[in-house]
């Protein structure tokens, strides 16, 4: 049990949190790990809060429940901090990664007494710079890979290139921008 890394994603419908969790499962799989990537399903609408999960382990994973005591939490949309207790159950030695232009110190007071590690990243700025559009999930994927240390950064970049070539086979023009977003994000996560 203890060698499983558990990650919980909070986002809003349409921001790609589910896709990011599946991409993380994909890339961790390619490094030889056992993985789970799954969203919590309900009557989703654009903009409604959604949750997605990852388990990454050296051993076979049998458990099929949601994650209540994650090692890491990713918040793809900072407006969720008002309505959702995003640090609920988060392990004290874990960390939270939030998409915001604020610094970790500034955002801490919005986390209702949470005392663990906080990382921030301005995914909007990175996405708009690299892609010209707001797709926060790609920078957030980089951020969680860096913060969680589930794999080496070089391997992550190499595997993502491979994964995007497959995923965007029909529109190769978006690969470069996505790769750029991933690389900038690795540098800019605080």
């Amino acid at each position, binding site marked *: *049990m203890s060698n499983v890394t558990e990650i919980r994603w909070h986002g809003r419908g349409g921001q790609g949190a589910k896709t990011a969790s599946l991409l993380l*499962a*994909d890339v961790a799989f390619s490094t030889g790990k056992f993985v789970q990537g799954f969203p919590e*399903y*309900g009557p989703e609408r654009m903009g409604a809060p959604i949750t997605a999960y990852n388990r990454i382990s050296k051993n076979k994973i049998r458990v*099929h429940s949601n994650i209540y005591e994650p090692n890491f939490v990713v918040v793809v949309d900072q407006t969720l901090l008002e309505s959702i207790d995003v640090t609920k159950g988060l392990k004290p030695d874990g960390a939270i990664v939030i998409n915001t232009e604020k610094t970790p110190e500034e955002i801490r007071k919005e986390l209702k007494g949470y005392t663990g590690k906080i990382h921030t990243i301005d995914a909007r700025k990175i996405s708009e710079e690299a892609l010209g559009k707001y797709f926060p999930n790609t920078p957030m994927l980089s951020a969680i890979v860096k913060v969680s240390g589930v794999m080496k950064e070089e391997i992550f970049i190499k595997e993502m290139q491979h994964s995007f070539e497959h995923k965007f086979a029909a529109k190769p023009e978006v690969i470069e921008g996505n790769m750029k977003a991933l690389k900038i994000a690795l540098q800019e996560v605080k």
Partner: protein
Amino acid sequence: MAIRERLSGNEAVATAMRQINPDVVAAFPITPSTEVPQYFSTYVANGLVDTEFVPVESEHSAMSACVGSEAAGARTMTATSSCGLALMWEELFIAASCRLPITLALVNRALSGPININADHSDSMGARDTGWIQIYSENNQEAYDNFIQAVRIGEHKDVRLPVMVCQDGFITSHAVENIELIEDDKVKEFVGEYYPQNFLLNSKQPMSVGPYDTPTYYMEHKRLQAEGMIKAKKVILEISEQFEKLTGRKYGLFETYKLDDADSALVIINSTAGTAKDAVDRLRAEGKKVGLLKIRVFRPFPAEEIAEALENTKSIAVMDKAEGFNSQGGPLCSEIKSALYNIENAPKIINYIYGLGGRDVKVDNIIEVYNELEKINKTGDIGNKYRYLSVRD
């Protein structure tokens, strides 16, 4: 060499369908099984299979098309969930009584109402007496493996019955997990060509399918149909054995986990069995004698084998992810109780209704159940026999 992959449960089943390359697939989309025909229709469009894909306008039509095409002599498949299976109701009986070995991927989901799209077993449990063979799957790997075996089981000359292969909606159908795939050519070789004994397009042997059956013969036909179900048990085991030779993965009528010396046992179906195995390991580490039995084949029901596997336990919690609304408990519990009826000093049995409409089940919830069994073993007092797990009072 097995192919290491990561796929959702739906994509795993669609992959099995692609490798089998059936003659006909007729389907109508319904959450959470939609992805199965969706993936499969891209395989058709991309020329990876030469299947005739029939996008029908309802599940009633889907199963009707399956009945027609299978009767014509074509290897036929479909996929559905929940209300989709309910809309197939009438044709499910027709498929089974005409002895048509259609293969159906069922992604288990609650039936309305209240309206709910998440997992439970009320759809397949409602169809348990339609004459279909039912095989259940804990994860994407089992859904894939069972689907490949199902074709051989249903088409076997001693069986000739339709088969539904079930997995939990969203929990496994939409979760991407590791899987080992078999090479395309090996799947094709394992499944083989389909040569039905009797079929409508055989001009040398004109026949009719599904005509009116008078009281003079109706019962004999039902008796023969029941015989096919009785014989299926042996055939399922034979095919499992051949599958193990191919893949190294062993399947039986059910799976036991640390059950041999267990005092307290769970009987459980599908994805929560995996969660329960983690609970068993945690309790075993504390020295507690606990184990579980996971149903793989629910129809035919392997009553004698299950009774033998459970006879030395002291207490059993039967876990039903479907209500029975008979005021006694769920459908699995009724089966387990009748299976153990003739055992001397039979273990005490309690029933839990759990996980309805996607209610999440944690390792801790299962530990709670084992703690209740331990209490029964200590006090001898069975208490309430019909319980609900993690529900608001």
